[in-house]
């Protein structure tokens, strides 16, 4: 089975719960365990929050979420056309935050990595960021 969903929404924090709800509903058709489903919800929330807070810095913008299901694999792509990331390696480091004055945990990417099988980040300053996350649902795992 192959399925696909494209969603685009404004960079409002109220859309975080919308995005993870849509993603969870989409992922259910892959028959995940309760734990796998909550992992996906958390990872999506991190990626969408990053797009809103860091990509657009709370300014107006559009966040794109693409979901793809193929066999037992879910691929989630979250894309913004915001300011981009200068040093991806640094941004992915646990506890690193580019906004230290704002009481951020710096755990966004670390959580995505812990909860998904793979996390790819493509970014260029001034051109936005794309995060591609994959998770395989192992029914007898």
């Amino acid at each position, binding site marked *: 089975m192959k399925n696909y969903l494209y969603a685009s929404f404004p960079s409002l*924090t*109220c859309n*975080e*719960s919308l995005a*993870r709800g849509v993603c969870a509903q989409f992922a259910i058709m892959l028959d995940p365990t309760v*734990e796998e489903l*909550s*992992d996906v*919800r*958390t990872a999506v*929330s*991190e990626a969408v*929050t990053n797009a*809103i*807070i860091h990509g657009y810095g709370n300014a107006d913008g559009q966040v794109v979420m693409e979901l793809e299901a193929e066999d037992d694999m879910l691929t989630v792509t979250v894309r913004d056309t915001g300011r981009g990331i200068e040093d991806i390696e640094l941004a992915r480091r646990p506890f690193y935050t580019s906004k230290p004055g*704002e*009481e*951020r*945990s*710096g*755990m*966004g990417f*670390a*959580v995505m990595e*812990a*909860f998904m099988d793979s996390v790819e980040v493509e970014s260029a300053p001034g051109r936005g960021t794309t995060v591609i996350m994959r998770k395989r649902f192992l029914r007898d795992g």
Partner: protein
Amino acid sequence: MKLKLSLKGNELNAALAGELDEHSAADVRRKLDDALRDPDITRVVFDMRSVTFMDSSGIGVILGRCRRLIERGGSMNVINAQRSVEKVLRISGVYKLCNERSGR
């Protein structure tokens, strides 16, 4: 997200309910900081029993309050987290900060 605060001696119990993400974090942070204006509060217990979702925005809220408490010689604890919330707390090292300086 709902937040119920109750004070018992110097200990503030913060019972959270619902989803704690970036969207709801600001309100929770403001309410907790209002309560922490009382300098006699030296301990906060976050009761996560009814938290159905939390991402790293929630970690920021907890760690920020923890820092303030440690500065005044106090401590915090995080209890009753559901499995998915517990996982985020564990990865972020929050449990290592629990009861620090409690002297118990």
